[in-house]
């Protein structure tokens, strides 16, 4: 990157800078005209110069210029105006000039602002572009939060400075020089005094500012380090809690803040000292004028008129001069910041941008062997990881790499994935170094998965297909206002040196995944998900999630069919009582009293239990045939039972897990309530107390809690209240409550609730497990399995994929590598979070079943379990950084070497 900010700005905004200088110059014309005009108004129409006789007129706006070659040309003869008319005309011209000046100012400021924002966009993009091209080793040294602050905060002032970079010194410098020249013209020696003081200011102030700049640099560094530390605290919070080191962190942060404070305070003191000296120097000049000039005048060597003129002229000098000095300070400050940032981003061995060039066209398969030639790898400290290894992996060959940790096997896999760059030797394909091949080849035709996974914030689908998003493959058609906005976006991107790639395009390269488009994508996704044993997890995610009716209409439209199929299936397997369905005119004993009343699903978070309980309509329904008294009595019974059961237990007793309708902390409060209210009827309770009692009844499920509080009469009453509740429901509730409808998909309920349309019986042993198996099979038979997977794919994986378990992340990481259909697939102990048994299962799945349909990549697998080596064509054994054995499984076993030792 360019090291001088001024040069960087000039080279990127040259034409705009010239244009704005030109506009500023032009704007000076009306500006100076408006200076002259008041004098004309006062001298002319007001004081009457030129209107000495009544009825006298003057010519207004007579335009006549002497043009070379044409001689005198009259553009406009002018108007003859009376004194009053002239006054009005001149005043209107004054108003016009005010408007013109204002418009110029508006245009110039907007233009400068836009110039600055574009510059900021350009710098930020350029920095991120460099991050994308950093060599891998660089990331071991930098903290992500520090890079983020540099890009976000530290370059920000550069945008503001860009607009002023050339205009300001030109303008202010011009004004200052004009004033100085004027003084010199009045009196040479006094002029020299003024120039001398200016020179002193120009020398002393920048010197003093050196310290300011140094402090500014330190301030920037310490602030950046602070954000790096904050990032570390957030990322390492588990370690901090686990080791009780939060106070150590507090101490560290406090000492950093102390350092930042002392730097900032120092800066502050210096800044005002410099300001004081600057002001003093500016004020000392008039002192010299008065004393020396006065002395000369007394001696008669200086005309008093001249002295007054000089002092008057001097008034115009300090203003621009001060602003110029301020500008210079801003310039240096921004320059320091810029240097600081550039220093961090000027990295050796940056990846050539050609290697990452966009390649929208399909990339041919790699049909040559992958060669490691005399490869030597070492870690950051220089310790060797791998020594002089030469080996060849042929296309389609499967190779198990075996060795203890530290044997170099993992390092070799990382080198194949370009995560470590060779110390010596190289890795080639068809004679070309893989580090020099474009990423459009290596990133698409070589897949890599290790144990450290990374998932971006987004859906599971985004993350799973991430390995296919190489280039925008579709052209998005925008219409109307969106088209105009898109055009504007593209233009602006171009002006700021940003690429014009459309992020809304479909980036997924379906063809290289082996399908034609999004519709048959699951044809390849499902076998992969099955192979890594994650489809059940995704199915569960789908069952637990709410479904977007619009995007998944293929499933939601068939919900009735699905519900019927489930009923039929359960009947066939004699499992009728596994699920108790919702029926409009029947009480569902497996659901809570609250659910039975509501008989619908609330759109959260717009509607909650609390809001519903407070709603006047809901209250009126309960009050109608005294249902709320029944519920109150029921709540009281529940409270009595709970208190009786749990009052003696310590609050952390595991039995409290079973108490679903209150917590251990609630028990004493209910105990007090019971003493007050038992046997005294509902009128004894205040509104709050009623609520906390009735609340208990809403969570009651007879088969689960078994207190014997529901009888057929009460159930009928509840069903009746349900009917009345839905009959005249006001619109505000209708908008947030969806009634259970056997014919429709309920968008605010989970997929599982929708399919069951009922509740699993509590007494059913292993009910939900059995149901899951049945559902999986049912989805398959109805051809809906892929739709359900697709719903599961909408799952939001959270920041860094943290909403997934480590096991799920590692499985998906392997799935992602497989989905690319690369020609060389490298697995570097990818599944350590899993049980050995599951790891083996997945390895078998991938090696034996997955690639039957024709696409057979070369697989290089660094194995954790050596016993699996017999699944591979070839076994390569590493020990202490060298390749020790290489051959088929059978030959190596015969050899009685290290491999045999590892296997046993």
């Amino acid at each position, binding site marked *: 990157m360019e090291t001088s900010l001024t040069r960087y700005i000039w080279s990127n905004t040259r034409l705009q800078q010239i244009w704005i200088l030109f506009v500023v110059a032009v704007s000076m014309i009306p500006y100076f005209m408006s200076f002259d005009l008041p004098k004309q108004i006062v001298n002319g129409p007001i004081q009457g110069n030129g209107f000495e006789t009544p009825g006298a007129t003057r010519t207004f706006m007579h335009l006549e210029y002497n043009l070379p070659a044409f001689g005198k040309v009259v553009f406009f003869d002018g108007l003859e105006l009376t004194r009053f008319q002239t006054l009005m005309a001149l005043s209107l011209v004054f108003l016009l000039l005010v408007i013109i000046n204002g418009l110029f100012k508006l245009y110039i400021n907007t233009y400068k602002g836009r110039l600055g924002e574009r510059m900021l966009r350009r710098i930020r993009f350029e920095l991120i572009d460099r991050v994308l091209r950093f060599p891998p080793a660089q990331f071991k040294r930098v903290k992500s939060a520090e890079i983020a602050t540099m890009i976000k905060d530290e370059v920000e002032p550069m945008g503001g400075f860009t607009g002023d970079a050339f205009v300001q010194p030109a303008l202010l410098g011009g004004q200052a020089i004009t004033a100085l020249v004027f003084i010199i013209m009045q009196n040479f020696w006094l002029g020299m005094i003024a120039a001398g003081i200016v020179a002193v200011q120009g020398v002393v102030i920048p010197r003093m500012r050196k310290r300011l700049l140094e402090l500014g640099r330190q301030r920037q560094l310490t602030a950046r380090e602070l954000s790096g530390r904050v990032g570390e605290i957030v990322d390492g919070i588990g370690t901090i809690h686990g080791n009780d080191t939060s106070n150590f962190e507090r101490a560290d942060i406090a000492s950093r803040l102390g350092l930042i404070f002392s730097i900032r305070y120092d800066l502050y003191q210096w800044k005002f000292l410099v300001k004081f000296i600057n002001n003093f120097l500016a004020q000392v000049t008039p002192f010299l004028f008065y004393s020396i000039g006065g002395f000369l005048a007394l001696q008669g060597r200086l005309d008093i008129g001249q002295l007054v003129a000089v002092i008057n002229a001097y008034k115009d000098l300090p203003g621009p001069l001060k602003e110029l000095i301020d500008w210079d300070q801003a310039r240096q400050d921004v320059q320091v910041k810029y240097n600081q940032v550039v220093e961090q981003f000027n990295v050796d061995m940056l990846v050539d941008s050609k290697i990452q060039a966009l390649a929208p066209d399909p990339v041919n398969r790699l049909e040559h062997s992958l060669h490691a030639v005399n490869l030597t790898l070492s870690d950051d400290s220089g310790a060797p990881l791998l020594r002089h290894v030469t080996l060849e992996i042929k296309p389609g060959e499967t190779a198990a790499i075996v060795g203890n940790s530290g044997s170099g096997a993992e390092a070799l896999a990382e080198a194949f994935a370009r995560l470590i760059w060779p110390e010596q030797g190289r890795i080639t394909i068809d004679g070309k170094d893989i580090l020099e091949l474009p990423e459009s080849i290596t990133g698409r035709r070589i897949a890599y998965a290790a144990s450290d996974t990374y998932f971006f914030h987004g859906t599971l689908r985004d993350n799973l297909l991430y390995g296919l998003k190489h280039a925008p493959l579709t052209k998005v058609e925008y219409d109307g206002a969106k088209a105009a906005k898109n055009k504007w976006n593209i233009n602006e991107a171009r002006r700021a040196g940003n690429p014009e790639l459309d992020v809304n395009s479909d980036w997924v390269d379906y063809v290289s995944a082996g399908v034609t488009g999004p519709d048959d994508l699951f044809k390849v996704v499902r076998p992969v998900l099955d192979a890594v044993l994650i489809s059940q997890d995704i199915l569960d995610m789908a069952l637990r999630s709410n479904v977007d009716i619009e995007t998944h209409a293929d499933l939601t439209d068939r919900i009735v069919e699905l519900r019927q199929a489930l009923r039929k299936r359960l009947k066939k397997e004699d499992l009728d009582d596994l699920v108790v369905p919702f029926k409009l005119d029947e009480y569902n004993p497996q659901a809570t009293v609250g659910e039975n009343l509501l008989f619908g699903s609330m759109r959260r978070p717009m509607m909650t239990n609390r809001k519903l309980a407070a709603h006047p309509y809901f209250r009126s329904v309960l009050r109608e045939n005294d249902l709320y008294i029944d519920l109150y009595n029921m709540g009281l019974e529940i409270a009595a039972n709970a208190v*009786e*059961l749990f009052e003696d237990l310590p609050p952390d007793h*595991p039995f409290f897990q079973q108490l679903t309708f209150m917590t251990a902390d609630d028990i004493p409060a209910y105990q007090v309530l019971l003493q007050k209210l038992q046997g005294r009827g509902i009128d004894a309770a205040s509104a709050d107390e009623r609520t906390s009692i009735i609340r208990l009844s809403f969570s009651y499920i007879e*088969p689960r*809690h*078994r*207190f*014997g509080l529901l009888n057929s009469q009460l159930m009928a009453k509840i069903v009746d209240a349900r009917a009345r509740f839905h009959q005249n429901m006001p619109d505000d509730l209708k908008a947030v409550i969806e009634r259970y409808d056997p014919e429709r998909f309920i968008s605010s309920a989970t997929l599982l609730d929708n399919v069951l349309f009922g509740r699993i019986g509590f*007494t059913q*042993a292993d009910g939900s497990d059995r149901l899951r198996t049945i559902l999986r099979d049912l989805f398959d038979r109805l051809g809906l399995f892929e739709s359900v997977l697709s719903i599961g794919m909408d799952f939001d994986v959270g920041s860094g994929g943290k909403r997934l378990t480590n096991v799920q992340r590692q499985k998906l990481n392997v799935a992602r590598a497989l989905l690319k259909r690369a020609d060389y697939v490298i697995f570097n102990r990818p599944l350590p979070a899993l049980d050995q048994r599951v790891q083996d299962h997945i390895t078998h799945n991938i090696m034996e079943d997955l690639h039957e349909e024709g696409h057979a990549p070369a697989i290089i697998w660094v194995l954790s379990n050596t016993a699996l080596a017999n699944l591979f064509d070839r076994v390569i054994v590493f020990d202490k950084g060298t390749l020790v054995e290489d051959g088929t499984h059978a030959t190596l076993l015969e050899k009685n070497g290290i491999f045999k030792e590892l296997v046993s």
Partner: protein
Amino acid sequence: MLLKDEVEMLRRVPLFSGVAPAKLKLLAFTSERVSYKSGQTLFRQGDPADAAYVILTGGADILSDSPSGEIKVAEIEHDSIVGEIAILCDVSRTATVRANSALEALRISKDHFLKLLSDYPEMTIEIMRVLADRLSHTTTELSEARSKQKQAAK
């Protein structure tokens, strides 16, 4: 069936006969009520043990895997507890238990069961008694089987 009925039934189980009714109610409330159809499996040999079962109604066969298939080792009836050994010594299930009629049971999870034993020593003693009884039973059967074997060998 309601909690209080379950308490009545639990009192008939020898293991719990010495425990106060209020505590039995708590035990019933904190355990899961499960029902099985005839032929449905409560747990399988080799599974990790996570709960004990008190049979309230119905009966079950205790089956053991052998090279020649499952062998029925014993039968249990209502008012008895099954699956508690695997919980106590933290091993996987030593046998398969399958309902031989419609069966209702209380499923007491491992944590709850252990907590009960530590809270109520009388239950622990009862458990010891039952286990000792079973051991002596098994010993008798074993010696009988040995003597039969000896006689057959003669």
